[in-house]
C-alpha cells in the first residue's frame, strides 16, 4: 500500500520518454508510455487485495493556505479508483496506438495522456483539499489540452474552452473551500469533525462548495454543458476522460467526504435533486442528438446523475459501485463507437454512419454488450447490479421519490441507447465503400475491447467483495440487493421495452435521426453563449476606465493610496 502513494509518478517516465522522442519512428510513438498505466493497475490491484492504509505528510508545504500540508492517502478506496484508472487507461493506450496510428500529433497525444493519468492519480490519492486542488486543476488542464487536440478543426478550441470555463467554476469553489477550512484540519476524510466545520458557514457551506466543484467536474446541473461538446476530442479521450475517470472524480470526492455530506442535510437534498433532474433531462436530450458521440455523452451525464443520486441518499458505496461498472461499459460503448468512426474516416453524424456498423462485427458485439449493461440486464451484465443498488438505496431511503424516478428513467435509457444501436449497427447496410479497414489498427482496437467486454459482463459479481473491502473508508454499507430482486427485473423490463421501441421506431423510419443542421457542431449552447456575451460587455465597460489620460490615472493612484492608508488604520 505504501507504494501506491507514489502511483501518480508512474506515468512520468513514460511522459518524459515520449516527449523526448524515444521511439524514434513517429508511428511507434507512445509505446514508451504503455508501461505506466499497466504498472499502476497491477500495483493498485495488489494494494486493494492487501488492504491497509498508508499516508504521506509534508507539513506546511503551502504556507499561505490554512491547511497547506502535502498529504497523500492510500487506502482501499483510492486503490479501487486507481485500479479503475489503470484498467481503462491501459486499454485506451492500446486502443490509441491503433486509433491515432496515422495522426501527425501522435506523440503530443501520448504526452497529454500521461499528464492526465498522473494528475488524475494525484487527485485520487489526495489526502487534503490542497493536494486535491492540484490534481483537480491538473485534470482540467489535461482535459482541455486533449479536447482541443485537433486544433486546426473549427470548433474544437471553443469546446475545450467551454470545458475550461466549467472547470474554472469548480476550481473556484474548491479553492474557496480550501481557504475556508480551518488550519490543523487534517485530511479529507475527517472533514466532518467539529474542528473542520468550525469555519465560516459550517458543514453546509463546505459541503455546498464541494458539491459545486463535483458538479462542475461531473457535468451535473447547469454545468453539464461542456461534456457533450467535449466530444470534439478524439474518441479514446471521450472514453477515458469523459466517461470513465475524470468525470467520475466528482462522485469520488463526494463519496470520500460522505461523512461531511451526512452532516449537511440541505446539501444532500440538493445532490439528490441535481442528480435525478440531470439523469432524466440528459436521458431525454440524448434522444434528440444527431451526433453519435454526443448521444453517448448525454448518456454519461445521465449515469453520473444516477451516481450523484446514490451519494445524495446516503449510499456512497452504491454510487461508487455504479462508477466502477459504468467505467467498464461506458468506455466499451465509446471505444466501440470509435472503431466505426475511425473506419468511416472521422464522420460522427448519425445520418452519415447509418448502417455502417454492420461492417465492424467486433464493434457491434461490444456495443451490444455495453448497451445491455447500460439498461441493466440482470445476471449477465454488470450494470444491473450497480444500478439496482442505487435504485434500491433510493427507494428504501428517506427520499423514496429518488428511487422511483430513477426507476422510471430506465425507460429513457433503453430508448436512447436502442436508438443509437439500431441506427448505426442494425439499419440496412450502407455503402461498403464508405468505410475503410486498416487491419493493423483495427486489430489493436478490437483486442482492447475484449477486457472491457469481460468487465461489462463480470464486474457486477465483484460487488460483495468490494463492499467488504470498502467498509473502512465508507463506513457502514447496506447490503446489496440480490440479483433476483423484483425491482431489478422491473428495471430491466422497462429498459428492454425502451430498447425494443427504439429498435422498431428507428428501423421503420428511414430518416429517424433528426438531421438537425450542424449535427457535428460543438458550439456552445445558446444560454452559455449569452453568459459569455455578458462577460464581454462587462469587460468592455471596464475598459473605458483606460482613457489614456495621464491625470486620470494619477487621480486613481492617489485616491487608491488614500484608501489603502485609511483601510490600514481602520483594520488595525
Amino acid at each position, binding site marked *: 500500500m505504501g507504494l501506491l502513494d507514489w502511483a501518480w509518478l508512474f506515468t512520468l517516465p513514460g511522459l518524459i520518454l515520449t516527449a523526448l522522442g524515444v521511439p524514434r519512428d513517429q508511428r511507434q510513438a507512445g509505446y514508451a508510455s504503455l508501461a505506466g498505466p499497466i504498472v499502476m493497475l497491477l500495483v493498485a490491484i495488489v494494494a486493494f487485495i492487501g488492504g491497509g492504509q498508508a499516508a504521506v505528510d509534508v507539513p506546511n508545504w503551502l504556507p499561505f493556505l490554512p491547511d497547506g500540508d502535502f498529504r497523500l492517502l492510500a487506502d482501499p478506496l483510492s486503490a479501487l479508483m486507481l485500479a479503475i484508472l489503470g484498467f481503462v487507461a491501459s486499454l485506451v493506450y492500446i486502443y490509441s496506438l491503433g486509433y491515432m496510428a496515422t495522426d501527425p500529433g501522435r506523440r503530443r497525444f501520448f504526452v497529454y495522456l500521461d499528464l492526465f493519468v498522473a494528475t488524475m492519480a494525484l487527485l485520487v490519492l489526495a489526502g487534503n483539499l490542497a493536494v486535491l486542488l492540484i490534481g483537480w486543476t491538473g485534470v482540467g488542464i489535461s482535459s482541455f489540452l486533449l479536447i482541443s487536440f485537433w486544433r486546426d478543426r473549427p470548433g474544437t478550441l471553443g469546446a475545450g474552452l467551454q470545458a475550461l470555463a466549467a472547470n474554472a467554476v469548480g476550481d473556484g469553489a474548491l479553492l474557496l473551500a480550501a481557504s475556508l477550512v480551518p488550519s490543523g484540519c487534517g485530511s479529507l476524510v475527517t472533514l466532518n469533525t467539529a474542528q473542520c466545520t468550525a469555519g465560516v458557514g459550517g458543514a453546509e457551506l463546505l459541503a455546498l462548495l464541494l458539491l459545486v466543484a463535483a458538479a462542475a467536474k461531473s457535468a451535473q446541473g447547469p454545468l453539464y454543458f461542456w461534456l457533450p461538446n467535449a466530444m470534439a476530442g478524439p474518441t479514446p479521450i471521450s472514453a477515458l476522460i469523459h466517461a470513465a475517470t475524470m468525470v467520475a472524480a466528482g462522485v469520488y470526492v463526494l463519496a470520500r467526504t460522505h461523512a461531511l455530506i451526512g452532516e449537511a442535510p440541505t446539501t444532500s437534498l440538493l445532490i439528490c435533486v441535481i442528480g435525478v433532474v440531470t439523469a432524466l433531462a440528459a436521458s431525454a436530450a440524448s434522444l434528440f442528438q444527431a451526433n453519435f458521440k454526443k448521444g453517448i455523452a448525454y448518456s454519461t451525464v445521465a449515469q453520473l446523475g444516477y451516481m450523484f443520486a446514490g451519494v445524495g441518499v446516503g449510499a456512497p458505496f452504491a454510487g461508487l459501485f455504479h462508477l466502477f461498472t459504468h467505467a467498464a461499459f461506458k468506455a466499451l460503448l465509446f471505444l466501440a463507437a470509435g472503431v466505426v468512426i475511425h473506419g468511416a474516416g472521422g464522420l460522427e453524424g448519425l445520418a452519415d454512419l447509418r448502417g455502417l456498423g454492420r461492417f465492424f462485427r467486433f464493434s457491434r458485439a461490444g456495443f451490444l454488450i455495453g448497451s445491455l449493461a447500460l439498461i441493466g440486464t440482470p445476471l449477465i451484465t454488470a450494470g444491473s447490479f450497480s444500478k439496482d443498488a442505487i435504485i434500491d438505496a433510493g427507494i428504501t431511503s428517506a427520499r423514496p421519490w429518488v428511487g422511483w424516478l430513477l426507476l422510471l428513467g430506465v425507460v429513457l435509457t433503453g430508448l436512447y441507447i436502442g436508438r443509437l444501436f439500431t441506427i448505426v449497427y442494425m439499419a440496412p447496410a450502407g455503402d461498403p465503400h464508405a468505410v475503410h479497414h486498416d487491419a493493423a489498427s483495427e486489430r489493436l482496437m478490437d483486442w482492447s475491447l475484449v477486457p472491457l467486454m469481460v468487465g461489462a459482463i463480470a464486474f457486477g459479481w465483484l460487488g460483495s467483495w468490494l463492499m467488504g473491502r470498502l467498509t473502512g473508508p465508507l463506513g457502514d454499507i447496506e447490503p446489496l440487493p440480490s440479483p433476483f430482486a423484483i425491482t431489478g427485473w422491473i428495471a430491466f423490463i422497462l429498459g428492454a421495452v425502451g430498447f425494443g421501441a427504439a429498435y422498431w421506431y428507428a428501423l421503420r423510419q428511414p430518416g429517424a435521426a433528426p438531421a438537425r443542421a450542424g449535427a457535428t457542431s460543438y458550439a456552445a449552447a445558446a444560454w452559455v453563449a449569452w453568459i459569455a456575451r455578458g462577460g464581454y460587455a462587462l469587460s468592455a465597460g471596464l475598459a473605458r476606465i483606460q482613457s489614456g489620460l495621464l*491625470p486620470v490615472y494619477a487621480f486613481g493612484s*492617489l*485616491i487608491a*493610496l*488614500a484608501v489603502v*492608508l*485609511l483601510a*490600514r*488604520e481602520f483594520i488595525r
Partner: protein
Amino acid sequence: MDDLFVPLLIGCLIALGSALGVVLVRRPIYSAVALLVHSLSLAGLFAILSAAMVAVGQVLIYSGAIVVLFLFVVTLLPTGGQELAPAGNRVAAGVIAAAALLVALGATLGGGIPPVAATFDLSVAAVGHALFGPLLVAFELTAPLLLVAIVGGVVVWRRHEPRPRISPRPVTTGEPRKLVLHR
C-alpha cells in the same frame, strides 16, 4: 527643539508658499523658479534640523542640478510660455485628491511623533559610516541606477536613423551580384 520653533516656522512657510506658487502659477518658467525657491527653503529646513550633509546635498544636487534641468527643458518645449487653463473638473479632482490624502495621512500619522533625541550625531562622519555600513548595497546601487537613467534618457530621446537599404538585383548567371547601399 522648541527653541528652534521660529526658524522652523519661517522655513515651513516659505516652503509652503513656494509650493503653492509651483501649483498655482500659469507660466511653467515661473513654476520652475518657484520650485527653486522651494528646494532652497527645504535645504534651510534640513540645516535647521542639524542634517548638514543633506542640506548641502539639497543645494548642490537638487537646486543646482535638477531644478536647472527643469528650467532648461521648460524652455526647450513648445509653448513653454503660457499654459492653458485647466478644466473645472480637473480642479475639482485635484481638490478631492488633496483632501483625501490629507485625511488619510492625518489618520496614519495622527498617533503623534516622539520628541527629538537629546543627543544626536548627524555629522558628515556619521553619514559616511552609515553609507559604507548598513546602507552599503543601496549606496553602491545608486551608481548603476544613474547610469541606467542616463542611458535611458539618451535612448528615449534618440530618433532612429534610417537603415541602409540593400536593393536586390535580378540574378543573372555569370555576373557577380553587387550590393548597393542607398541612404
